[in-house]
């Protein structure tokens, strides 16, 4: 490692302001801080010692928390594929390999496009590369259906990073959750790629990269059709998946959001390491459960009221999207209100407009808009207390 550090120190002047590669200074700094903790020491005035926690460590742990969802999602893609082609009990390893090959291009595209834009903007602003996209880049592939073409994901990622993040000032300044803006762009611009019956199960992963569906193992299919539980609710049909299936996650859906168990492992990692707020997470479930219970007579066969909490990306949104510290409410009291309203509105959208697939996404985006207002009210009560105290 010290040899690598010496090498980096040797080539560093080439990347400084007057060096040959000064246009790549941000990239070089990003690489150097990826390999080594920066040696910058504290200024003469101020705290001289600092906690070892930094933005990189926090983002790393969120990505670690997402890995169970990613791995299970890959497995599930393969599992659903083999089920659809008629194999009753698909082989576990085959399923995973199939899913891995199908999902990996999406992850790569998401990171390459997003980080490419971030590096360019960081260099343009002459700042360090910020770590926010490490998490968003992993979230984006997990919330799209498997048959979503890569060029559309690239377009949506570019849109979200530029217009929902960089325009506001970068990581820490955005109002909307970047991964959800990606999904919103996909849903409203390319609805046929995001909903319906044909997008959830992969026929041929190579063809699906360019969006052609039709050939599975030499057999010509028009499309592989399989409905998600929300799709069935929308159509008013009985839900074919059992309650247990919705928890284990062996159902069609967006890549990472089907398995409550995998999401729960991620939630435990996030809560125990202190990166996510339990107040927000708990409130989302409480709000959702309350509204789901109020509308419990409004469901079709084979669907219990509490299954609203296990289908349709509700868990994934509650654990990974609602808890995004930048876009959620920042006061401790505000987090309860914010989380509760997310859960309540998500389920409300879903029951009143049966099976509308984007209830969770829209609820979180709506509450992202209201989070500053919630904080304002909480802080205002403190301000009023101070004014009253001064007047006494």
């Amino acid at each position, binding site marked *: *490692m*010290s040899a690598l*550090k010496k090498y980096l120190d040797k080539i560093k002047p080439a990347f400084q302001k007057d060096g040959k590669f000064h246009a790549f200074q941000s990239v070089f700094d990003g690489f150097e*801080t*990826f*390999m*080594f*903790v*920066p*040696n*910058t*020491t*504290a*200024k*003469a*005035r*101020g*705290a*001289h*010692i*600092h*906690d*070892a*926690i*930094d*933005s*990189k*460590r*926090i*983002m*790393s*742990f969120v990505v670690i928390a997402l890995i169970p969802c990613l791995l299970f999602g890959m497995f599930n893609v393969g599992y659903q594929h083999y089920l659809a082609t008629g194999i009753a009990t698909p082989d576990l390893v085959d399923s995973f390999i199939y899913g891995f090959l199908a999902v990996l291009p999406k992850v790569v595209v998401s990171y390459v496009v997003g980080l490419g834009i971030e590096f360019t903007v960081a260099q343009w602003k002459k700042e*360090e590369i*910020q*770590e*926010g996209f490490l998490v968003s880049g992993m979230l984006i592939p997990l919330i799209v259906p498997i048959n979503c073409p890569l060029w559309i994901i690239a377009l949506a990622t570019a849109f979200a990073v530029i217009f929902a993040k960089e325009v506001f*000032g*970068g*990581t*820490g*300044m955005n109002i909307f959750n970047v991964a959800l803006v990606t999904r919103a762009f996909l849903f409203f611009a390319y609805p046929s790629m995001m909903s319906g019956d044909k997008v959830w199960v992969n026929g041929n992963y190579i063809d699906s990269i360019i969006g052609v569906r039709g050939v599975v193992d030499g057999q010509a299919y028009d499309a592989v059709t399989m409905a998600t539980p929300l799709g069935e609710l929308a159509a008013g049909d009985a839900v074919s998946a059992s309650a247990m299936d919705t928890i284990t996650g062996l159902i069609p859906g967006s890549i990472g959001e089907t398995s409550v168990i995998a999401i729960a492992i991620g939630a435990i990692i996030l809560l*125990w*390491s*202190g*990166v996510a*707020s339990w107040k927000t997470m708990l409130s989302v479930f409480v709000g959702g459960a309350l509204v789901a219970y109020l509308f419990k007579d409004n469901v079709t066969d084979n669907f219990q009221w509490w299954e609203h909490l296990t289908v349709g990306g509700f868990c994934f949104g509650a654990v990974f999207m609602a808890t995004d*510290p*930048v876009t*959620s409410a*920042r*006061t*401790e009291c505000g987090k309860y209100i914010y989380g509760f309203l997310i859960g309540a509105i998500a389920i409300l959208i879903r029951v009143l407009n049966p099976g509308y697939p984007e209830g969770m996404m829209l609820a979180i985006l709506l509450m992202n808009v209201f989070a500053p207002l919630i904080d304002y009210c909480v*802080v205002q009560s*403190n*301000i009023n*207390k*101070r*004014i009253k*105290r*001064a007047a006494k």
Partner: protein
Amino acid sequence: MCDLIVEDVRVPICYLCETINLLLILNMAKVIKLRKGLNINLKGKAEAKVIAIDASDVYGLVPDAFVGVKPKLVAKEGDVVKAGDALFVDKLHPEVKFVSPVSGKVTSVERGDRRKILSVQVTADKQQVYADFGKKNVNSLSGEQVKSALLESGLFAFFLQRPYAVTANPADAPKAIFVSTFCDMPLAADFEVVLKGNEADFQTGIDALAKIAKVHLGVKPSASSALANAKNAVVTVFDGKCPAGNVGVQINNVSPVNKGEVVWTLGAEEVIFIGRLFNTGKVDLTRTIAVAGSEIKAPAYVKALVGQQISSIVKGNIATDKKVRLIDGNPLTGLKVCETAFLGAHSTEITAIPEGDEADEAFGWIMPRFNQFSTSRTYCSWLMGNKEYSLDARVKGGERHMIMSGEYDSVFPMDIYPEQLVKSIIAGDIEKMEALGIYEVAPEDFAVCEFVDSSKLELQRIVREGLDMLRKENE
């Protein structure tokens, strides 16, 4: 078993004794329990013994240590001064004098950019001569007489005020004077060690302050009798982690400063200076300071004068195997200095930590990093109990916008929203700053927040800029 003597309550060594001790204090003092805060356990705490050091040849008074003061020189180079004679005064309030800690000749006035006075240096005589201000019986004096005695002797210069956390203005009528008798910052001096032998002077100082305004004393739960049972003062026990010892935190929990009100604060050792003035007629600025830190070979207490050159304080006591950062003060609120600098007017300790600028730690974002301390459970320090850490001066991350919420609130035991206050300062929103309580805070109250901040913002500098912004606005 512990000895429980009626007049002198010993530091308890078991839970039963602690309860009894607390009850005894409780009979006369209110106990405020503060749940928020963080104790940072650093290596190299000073042992509770006082070791001898040599006097230094040169002593320097640094105007920057007196925040908010525009110095106007009254002593020129070549002047002979006694200990207690004025070296410079406050340009806006010339009655506030800043006096020499030693007698001798003024050898140089160090200036910086734009002729700013960096220090006024006095070469000390072998035999010290003190200016005589006359022994006085505090009980027979009025508030005005006490104040003018303090102004004349230069001890008024040590008073700080809220709002703005600057040197106090003698024209104000403060609603109270707050003294915190303990500092729980890492490696800070323990006032109980300083107080030993000076209890009478301390009480005289309190009596004098009580003539000016109501005196509030903040003590810790294990405080000795001289503090817990001090007369002419309202004693409040603060039971909590750092920064419970910050006077700003204590003011906010006892009697918060409203817009338009003024509160004066004074360091506990400076109360002893006042007592010495009235009891002996002399200005004796001898402090008992802690010399501590992982890079100090024998951490202990020493007797040093305000303005003593730091080289004489740490001579032979600093580790030589690596680059060391010398700090005038504690590692959270102090100033980085070199050995030729002088002990700051308000400083109660000198600390030395490794600089760490050649650490080259690899893959910090995923390695376990057992030697690093963090409040976050993404590291292992939460498993290590009371382990002492040798932290270096690295920032350990790049500066970012605020990302995590709730980081500051968990270590800020005041009824103020720290994150929103800092954001309003960064935005320059003066109305918002006022509304959120900037009149009550000082930069040192944000020191622990700056330590735990994952976005590595320079919070103390930001708060100081905000306070200066508001002070200019209200002038």
